[in-house]
């Protein structure tokens, strides 16, 4: 039954989604293109966080550090050592992932609270290094004139070009993550989320898997960081602080902790909200803090997931059986 109704519906939805994404730089004014680029970059990090929090129940308050590592390593390698930006991105992702894997082994064995604080502390230590290690990162001044990403003579030097580059990566990350979730590994992750003891009883190496997901989330964040560096062509310590880690947390929570595609929704919602509140001083903190509390209290699986579930409930009541 190749073209069942459901399948056709899915294909149409995907086609529509892709068309919308492709059209954005042409339809809206250029400001929104740059917003969409940032959303794309942040979504990559958020997906990693969703995987980590939603599937292994581990919270990370230091994703901004991995994001920063990706950005700085890319910047240093491509600017100071003249490496190809693509190679730099690959190296950054590998180094950041390996770092997370090594740190993750002892850290992820900790009980929830210690883990949260450990990631928080890690994030802050790395931020301090960004800020103070002048010899490496140029400290507060930051690194400038970072080269563009390019394929041959085609350089990604305008917003419009960069938009497609970023969203290529974003969609790639989303698809890869979705593949992982619906695979043997995904089943193992869902098992861990449900009952670690039962997961172990069927041969799943729980600690190992948790560390791997942690490392994966770091790799995603690093890729996002590299993309950021080659977009702005300038990195400074400021964006990679604890506050950003909390923003990422918020995006993940709004999107739904175990929802891959919800990450787009969460990131977009928070990005626009943040933008709207930007001029109003500390209103952003107040609103964000409030939303964070409200969602976890009333919709612990995330806003997007709850909306989805509500929608599905309504369809069930209308007579459509569960697919």
């Amino acid at each position, binding site marked *: 039954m190749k073209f069942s109704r459901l399948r056709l519906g899915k294909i149409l939805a995907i086609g529509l989604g892709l068309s919308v994404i492709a059209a954005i730089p042409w339809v809206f004014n250029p400001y929104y293109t740059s917003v969409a680029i940032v959303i794309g970059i942040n979504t990559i990090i958020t997906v990693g966080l969703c995987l980590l*929090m939603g599937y292994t129940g581990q919270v990370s308050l230091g994703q901004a550090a991995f994001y920063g590592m990706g950005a700085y390593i890319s910047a240093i390698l491509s600017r100071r050592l003249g490496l190809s930006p693509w190679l730099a991105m690959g190296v950054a992702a590998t180094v950041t992932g390996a770092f997370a894997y090594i740190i993750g082994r002892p*850290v992820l*064995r900790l009980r929830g609270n210690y883990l949260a604080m450990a990631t928080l502390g890690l994030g802050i230590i790395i931020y301090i290094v960004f800020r103070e290690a002048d010899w490496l990162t140029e400290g507060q001044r930051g690194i400038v004139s970072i080269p563009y990403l390019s394929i041959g003579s085609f350089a990604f030097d305008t917003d419009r070009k960069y938009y497609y580059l970023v969203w290529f990566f974003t969609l790639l990350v989303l698809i890869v993550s979705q593949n992982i979730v619906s695979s043997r590994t995904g089943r193992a992750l869902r098992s861990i989320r449900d009952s670690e*003891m039962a997961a172990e009883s069927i041969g799943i190496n729980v600690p190992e898997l948790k560390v791997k997901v942690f490392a994966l989330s770091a790799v995603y964040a690093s890729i996002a960081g590299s993309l950021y560096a080659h977009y702005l062509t300038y990195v400074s310590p400021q964006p990679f602080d604890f506050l950003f880690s909390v923003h990422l947390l918020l995006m993940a929570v709004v999107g739904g902790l175990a929802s891959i595609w919800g990450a787009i929704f969460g990131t977009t919602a928070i990005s626009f909200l943040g933008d709207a509140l930007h001029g109003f001083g500390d209103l952003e*903190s107040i609103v964000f803090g409030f939303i*964070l509390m409200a969602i976890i209290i009333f919709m612990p699986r995330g806003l997007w997931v709850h909306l989805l579930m509500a929608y599905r409930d309504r369809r069930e009541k209308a007579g459509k059986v569960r697919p």
Partner: protein
Amino acid sequence: MAVSQFIQYFVSGITQGSVYALVALGFTVIYSVTGIINFAQGESVMLGGMLAYFYFHTLSLALPFACLLSVLSVTFSGLLLERLAISSSKRASVVSLIIITIGASMFIRGIAGELWGKDPLPLPAFSGEKPILFLGAAIQPQTIWVLAVTLIFMLLFQLLLSRTLLGKALRACALNRRAAGIVGINVRAMSLLSFAMAAALGAIGGIVIAPLTLTSYDIGVMLGLKGFVAAAMGGLSNQTGAVAGGFALGILEALGAGYISSAYKDAIALLLFFLFLLVRARSLTSPEQEK
């Protein structure tokens, strides 16, 4: 010369350590009674100083009265936090509770920033600013206040825990919540009380140190983190350990900042924390089966 410099650092360390100790104590109180780590703990210190400034400066109340009112206000906010955020998620996972308190801390910080702006605010020293000379080091009299007040309240707290019926009830909850409930202790009330006390302790710390280090809307995060580090190193349910950890952290930090590098000051506490985690990792791992 070297002695006086050491004394300077040491005193600075003890002073800051007092605040860490108070925050750490607050962490252990809440944790031992409710099992929750309150990420917003640092904010109570911030609010203590900020509100004291507000009552004193803006409402022109007498300093002692302003301080008292501040403590009461912050205590009330602690109750609010417990009520609003925590009790409505009794069945929530650890992750959820952590996120709630993070949200709360952000929310509080935002309100403080909105109401009082981002600049550091001064509170007048309790007994003047003429430095006391001790072995060649110049010590602010406020420092004495910090140490004295901290020690007094810790003693009071300790007495409360060990000598009063209320204290016994709290300790019972800390040991075994369910058993305490069965025996007739009002666990909900104890939970409220623990949040109130932690808030009060934090506020006291914030007020007493504000004249020295100034208070501003964003000191909560680092204080909370370092207080947690101190509490964790001393044993999350161990009051004396937490206090000792707080002082130790303050001293190590001050010495490190003075002798090694002040730019990396914040990193010192965190590195210590990591070392501690790595060394004690075994005993902090998650036990899957709960009796």
